[in-house]
């Protein structure tokens, strides 16, 4: 489904170029639940940014369902991105929209009918436990609530694949377990999940495939691995 082929990413800022990813190749199959682990700065977020075509690789290519992601024309990008749900590390909620509107926005973008939006959004907000925060703006939410709102937005349109960048970074152990249970359930229903994290407990509890990055290189890629750095 997704194939990273010899991906490199070098950032040129300041005096010294920074190598974020160095010749990274791997594949993710449909319905897989893949965790990408590594220290901060290991290249996890860069990898997800490249997959979303938010940034261009310095070398190599990424294929999504046989299509080179970075050869998609700007007009085609919206359609491509609608197949992916993303939980951003910094949430990226729209500050001038309420929680409800933030979640509904993805469906509005896709041209979904009003009735469907008004029936689906409350359900998803209920799933992530934000029903009573529906009319609040992001700045009125706590860190954990924002993270759950971001999760709701990533789920709402039933994407084929969900990219979760540190989705539990600001959550207490209770909510962390809840979110991971939710992601596992979504995965069992057929959605591919790529999870970037450095939370050891999550990885150990999941018992799924783990790719370990260190300084931009894959140092391990194991099925049902346990977290070791």
């Amino acid at each position: 489904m997704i194939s990273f082929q010899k991906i490199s990413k070098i950032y040129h800022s300041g005096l010294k170029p920074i190598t974020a990813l160095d010749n990274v190749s791997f594949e993710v199959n449909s319905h897989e639940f893949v965790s990408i682990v590594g220290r901060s700065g290991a290249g996890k977020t860069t990898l997800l940014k490249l997959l979303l075509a938010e940034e261009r690789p310095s070398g190599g290519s990424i294929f999504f369902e046989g299509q080179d992601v970075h050869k998609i024309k700007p007009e085609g990008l919206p359609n491509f991105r609608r197949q992916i749900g993303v939980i951003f590390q910094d949430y990226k909620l729209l500050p001038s929209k309420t929680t409800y509107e933030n979640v509904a926005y993805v469906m509005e973008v896709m041209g979904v009918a009003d009735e469907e939006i008004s029936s689906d959004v409350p359900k998803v907000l209920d799933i992530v436990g934000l029903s009573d925060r529906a009319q609040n703006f992001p700045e009125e939410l706590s860190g954990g609530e924002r993270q759950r709102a971001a999760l709701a937005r990533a789920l709402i349109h039933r994407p084929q694949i969900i990219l979760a960048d540190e989705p539990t970074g600001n959550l207490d152990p209770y909510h962390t377990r809840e979110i991971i249970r939710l992601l596992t359930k979504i995965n069992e229903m057929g959605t591919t999940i790529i999870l970037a994290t450095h939370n050891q407990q999550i990885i150990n509890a999941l018992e799924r495939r783990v790719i370990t990055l260190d300084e931009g290189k894959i140092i391990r890629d194991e099925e049902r691995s346990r977290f070791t750095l």
Partner: protein
Amino acid sequence: MITFKRIVKSGWLGFKRNSGLSLATIFILVMTISLITSLFLLQKTSNFLITSLTEKVDMAIYFSVEPSTEEIISIQEELFSLSEVKNLEYVSKEEALEKFTERHRSEEIIMESLAEVGGNPLLSSINIKAFEASQYAAISSFLDNASFRDLITKVDYYQKRPAIEKIFSWTSSINVTGIILSIVLAVVAVLMAFNTVRIAIYNSRDEIETMRLVGAANWFIRGPFMVQGVIAGALAVLITFLVFSVGILFLSPKIEIIIPGLGLSAYFFSNFFVILLIQLAAGVGLGILSSWIAVRKYLKI
């Protein structure tokens, strides 16, 4: 259709929720539209001044002997053959005397000296009006070689010449400075409005990027910003129009004292729709255009 509804709604919500920024934008747009409307009214005022100045200028040729009716007709025909001549008026000796006594009735010394001279010392004349102040020189040089030259004792152009030339240079410099000033001010106003919208949208740059990343099409992102531009522009036009209507209604009588016959309020209200259209074009057009350009920069992701 459903997306259009969503774009309008989202634009309206954005406008309402960023009320501080929206007010600032409206304020700047009001200034811009006011400036453009003022230029429009100023143009009318300067045109009026130029025409009324030009109309005050004329030249006259005086005849030593009163010409016969046929001579007058042929002279007038000859003068009318000039393309510069707008109007001719023959004043006979008697009419000249009448006008003179009319004008100086209350001034005893003049009337006494007129009686002293006895008879009618005034000359018959033809008053010539040209279309423009600059054309009197040409008419004057034509007169030097005219067939009726021998009949002429005096052409008063030479005495009036400095005044005529001054008026001519004034009107042309008023025109030129008016145009340059208008262009400069209009450009400044447009840039000011554009910059305000740009700063407003700069604040939303992260939001625009997020919209791109969750799969919004460009026009779905741009739309609400342009709707906000339209709302701000339309409100600004409304405010400016009210301010100008009230202002002109109150100030017009005072302006009328300084420049009689200008009729600024009559002009303003008879050109109601033209002015409204100019303001709408300026306000809404600027709102839409500057949002369009400002958003474009952040749509590259």
